[in-house]
């Protein structure tokens, strides 16, 4: 599977048949460049972790992958991001459908101020994925089940989602993302607002979801990256420094900066 080619300094990481790729991706917030020539492949049905110090561009990169940066004023992007070999920045791409294929889970749990049921049903409803109430029920139940939340909430599906605990809310957000059957799920530091026990549950969940979905996760915790991911990409100052199999990155980094970050000398 994943083969890291040549020197890590130029970081030209290609894999055989990537689910998503980024090629020469540059991103500017007005005049500030936030990403420099990022080239990265995302392997299907694997967890890819993006690590790096604060402000290194890993979240920005993640948000390029489902065009969430489109909603921010003054962002310019050059280069190419593909999903199944199609450029997602192509004029003919429907952003709305794209985001249904590439789900996202955010740093802070952000359930809508609706019932638990309506939160999960939100995506299927707006995309018209179901024809009947029974089908919708079915999707909601499976999604909650997949997010490992069904047991805890099945008796109070109609109560407000904001009443759940932080960890439950985050798993609800994952269920919400899963409900539209995306192919890729992007997670932006999904555990940073959670306590250790809730974090453990979410990590366990990520590991299970890997069998059905391609997952990209931004994380500040190197332990977390080591625990949940198969591939790890290290970002520094807007550049992708090194990418490779997680074991290799953590035990035998090729770049001095990666080594420095992983051993805790900066970051």
């Amino acid at each position, binding site marked *: 599977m994943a083969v890291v080619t040549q020197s890590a300094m130029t970081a030209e990481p290609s894999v055989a048949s990537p689910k998503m790729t980024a090629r020469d991706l540059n991103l500017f917030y007005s005049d500030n460049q936030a990403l420099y020539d990022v080239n990265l492949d995302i392997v299907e049905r694997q967890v890819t972790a993006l690590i790096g110090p604060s402000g290194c561009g890993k979240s920005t990169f993640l948000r390029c992958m489902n065009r*969430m940066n489109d*909603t921010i004023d003054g962002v310019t992007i050059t280069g190419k991001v593909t999903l199944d070999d199609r450029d997602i920045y192509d004029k003919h791409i429907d952003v709305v459908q794209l985001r*249904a294929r590439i789900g996202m889970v*955010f740093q802070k749990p*952000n359930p809508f101020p609706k019932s638990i049921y309506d939160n999960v049903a939100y995506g299927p409803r707006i995309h018209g994925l179901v024809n009947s109430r029974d089908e919708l029920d079915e999707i909601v139940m499976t999604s909650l089940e997949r997010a490992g939340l069904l047991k805890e909430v099945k008796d109070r599906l109609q109560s407000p989602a904001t009443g759940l605990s932080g960890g439950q809310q985050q798993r609800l957000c994952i269920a919400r993302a899963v409900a539209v059957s995306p192919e890729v799920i992007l997670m932006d530091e999904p555990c940073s607002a959670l306590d250790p026990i809730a974090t453990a549950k979410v990590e366990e969940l990520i590991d299970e979801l890997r069998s059905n979905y391609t997952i990209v996760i931004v994380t500040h915790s190197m332990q977390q990256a080591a625990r949940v991911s198969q591939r790890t990409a290290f970002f520094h100052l807007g550049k992708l420094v090194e990418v490779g199999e997680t074991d290799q990155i953590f035990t035998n980094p090729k770049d001095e900066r990666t080594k420095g970050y992983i051993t805790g000398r900066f970051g």
Partner: protein
Amino acid sequence: MSLSFLLLAVAALCALSFYFGRQRAVALSGGRHSNLHSLPAHYGTYVALWCGMPALLLLLVWYVFQGSVIEAMIVAELPAEITSDTGQLSLALNSIALIAADNGQHLSVSPEVIDAGRRLANLQSIANASLVVLMLCVAVIGISVSYRKIDPEMRARNNVERISRWMMIACSAIAILSTVGIVFSLLFEALHFFSKINPVEFLFGLEWSPQTAIRADQVASEGAFGAIPLFVGTLLITVIAMCVAVPVGLFSAIYMGEYASSKFRAIAKPALEILAGVPTVVYGFFAALTVAPFLRDNGAILGLDVSSESALAAGLVMGVMIIPFVSSLSDDVMSQVPQSLRDGSYGLGATKSETIRNVIFPAALPGIVGAVLLAVSRAIGETMIVVMAAGLAANMTVNPLQAVTTVTVQIVTLLVGDQEFDSAKTLSAFALGLVLFLVTLGLNVFALKVVQKYREKYD
């Protein structure tokens, strides 16, 4: 010594005492400010406050009581035949005041009154002089007492803090007390009215014609004080206004907040808010001179009989006036919906309008309801537009093409011109005012409650 001079003197004393208080603190510190409990300026402020505050308090109390005390002294000296009759007494007191102000040469009054006038002038100058002396004394005592108290251990900073807190409490008390005062003045006049007219008849009567005979020999109608037609008229115009203001205000708020580029927003938002700065009397012109004739002429073309002072004209223009109110308030509540909820919805592949409809709007709904209620209470209390554009005839109708009148219009017409304050006609204005006040107060309290409840959710 005039009042302004006196105040200036006290201010100068305060400045001096600040300086000396500070100097003393510095001297006591032995050169190191850290030996003091508080900063030298705190000691200065402490002394200055003790100089100025008691003096100003004395001034206030003095002015509240000076008039009545002096009057009592004058009245006590007047002969019984004047004081026994209240009419005569107030006439005499007037002349006395004129004489005291050196304005009464032309008056032909009894020597007692002239004497009293001289005495009044005398008493007033004594009072003024003693006020000056007393105030300066109080200021100086304040200075010397607090100056002596200065000590490196003294907690001047905490004292200053406490005093300034009381000053702020006093300021907010003034705001609250004036509201209470307004309520009571309305209440008493309204009770006066209700002693003449049955409140049930007023609140539920269907006919409003407040013309009553002023003198017994005049020919005039009995007067009917059923306020329902006014309430209906007010409600009709308010509903028309809200039909304009709510959709336009809300949609422009949504456009400004969610769709517009920041460049467009920077220009359009202030432009919209200019509407809020237009004086209502200008809206009144606009309604009476432009909108109403336009509606009447176009109504004639369509074969409709539109009154030239139609409820529609007044309501439409009032709606325009309220647009910025609705839009800026609902813009506020919608922008308070956290960005994370928007992101969550976009991340699931929702479009902008789906996000607004399904996430932002429901989350902001309580706040928007609050905004609309506040706008309703503005519309109900709005006076100038309806005075100029709505009619005076108290028609009981819900036809927007006819003339109706509102509570505020009636209050204005009842009180304009020379009025006697014991006829039911004039007093009914206060009863109407009371009803208006209670309704808008209730709406405001309710709306603010709703808005507040919503705010707590995301903070």
